[in-house]
């Protein structure tokens, strides 16, 4: 397939306080083998040559593991592909002449820093509220000393695969952080090491999630559909059960 020419409508915003607006760009010579972020690199090279300000976007690993990349592409966080992050989206999914609207994650709790980058430290504060286990490390324990059923281990691993990208918040019509918070509560609730602080963790993390100004969960399940790790809303159901236990019982 020949190289593509695309029209990009990109949200440009100078800093946190300035009002932003959409600006249209044309990018030529986009190869179908490029990733979406490489296509953005091509655009930025063009802008640098013209002496213009580059479009800021977050990225790091570019292989779907760090959770830095974001972008709402034609109305879908991480683009139309299921189970991939923006950095894993390839240009062969687009056609020559396409118009692509690119927006930042939109949530009061994720303020725009510049252009397409947002401040996701609200997630860090939710983790600080309880997304850990307190273990006084001694010698490494024998791996077979604590037995974990395989199904629990697998489900905990599914939850732990959350990369903290925030696409769940971006996709949620209410900008709820339930899927992220639930994944982090769930991964510990399923494992023996997470039991000691179990109730306190659920209570504190939900309280922090609410304090950050995320919306409520209306069970649209859009989060699961856009999550690059395909984390199931069954973890949200578990978060609720954990929270109810924390409401009823003492630690």
């Amino acid at each position, binding site marked *: 397939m020949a190289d593509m020419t695309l029209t990009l409508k990109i949200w440009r915003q100078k800093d946190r306080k300035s009002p932003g607006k959409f600006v249209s760009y044309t990018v030529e010579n986009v190869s179908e083998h490029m990733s979406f972020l490489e296509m953005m690199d091509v655009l930025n090279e063009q802008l640098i040559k013209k002496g213009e300000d580059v479009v800021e976007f977050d990225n790091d690993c570019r292989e779907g593991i760090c959770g830095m990349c974001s972008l709402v592409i034609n109305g879908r966080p991480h683009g139309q592909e299921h189970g991939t992050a923006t950095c894993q989206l390839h240009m062969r999914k687009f056609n020559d002449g396409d118009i692509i609207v690119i927006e930042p994650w939109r949530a009061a709790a994720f303020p725009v820093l510049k252009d397409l980058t947002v401040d996701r430290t609200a997630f860090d504060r939710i983790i600080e509220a309880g997304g850990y286990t307190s273990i006084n490390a001694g010698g490494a324990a024998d791996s077979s000393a604590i037995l974990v059923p395989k199904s629990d281990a697998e489900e905990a691993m599914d939850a732990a695969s959350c990369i903290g990208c925030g696409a769940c918040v971006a996709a949620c019509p209410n*900008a709820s952080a339930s899927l992220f918070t639930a994944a982090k509560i769930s991964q510990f609730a399923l494992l023996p090491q997470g039991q000691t602080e179990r109730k306190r963790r659920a209570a504190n993390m939900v309280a922090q999630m609410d304090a950050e100004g995320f919306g409520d969960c209306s069970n649209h399940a859009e989060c699961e559909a856009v999550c690059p790790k395909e984390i199931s809303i069954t973890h949200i159901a578990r978060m609720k059960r954990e929270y109810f236990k924390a409401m009823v019982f003492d630690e």
Partner: protein
Amino acid sequence: MPALPTSLWSSVARKALMALTGLALIGFLIVHLLGNLILLSGNADAFNLYSNIYASMGSFLYVIEAGLVAFFLIHIVSGITVALGKMKARPVSYKKVANAGGPSRKTVSSVTMIYTGVLLLVFLVFHVVSLKYGAHYDTTIGGEKMRDLYKLVVENFQQPYIVAGYVIIMTLLGFHLRHGFWSAFQSLGALQPRFSNMIYIIGVFIAIILAIGFLFVPIWIFLNS
């Protein structure tokens, strides 16, 4: 040990309240529909005797009514809180919004819950004012004097615009319950992937049965009187 910072008005507990009250209201609607089916017999005495059971409950009826009002209030206040919170949580909306498909349950039903809910509330006021507090006719059955509610109901449903209104609102109720029934189980943390689809399908059936049941009665009376 300091108490855990849980609250009945946290995002999680609030939705559980909404789910419990919503499910209770569905239970109320099922009983209500069964009662309405007596109207289809066209037997005025049978319906009046049935409605007289409630009227003769005395103060116990007030207890039931107070409970019902409380459930509605909790449901409505928490519903409005969710809707307002959503606007606060996303002050700048997207230029382009697409449905992600796949496992998503986002539908016209799920994104219009607050609109169908508010319209149900408006209807509810009209419904109670026009029937419960409507014209009081008397009838005597087996020597006992009681309210002729049947006459009032038939009078109401002889008006085409009232029948049309019921048909529209009951269709909206169907949409509310299509997402609501399944959603309530998820809000209560009761769903597992292996029966999530089954609960959703049961919810769709309940929505259709309640909507058709409630809109059929006015149409039937309109056509048969």
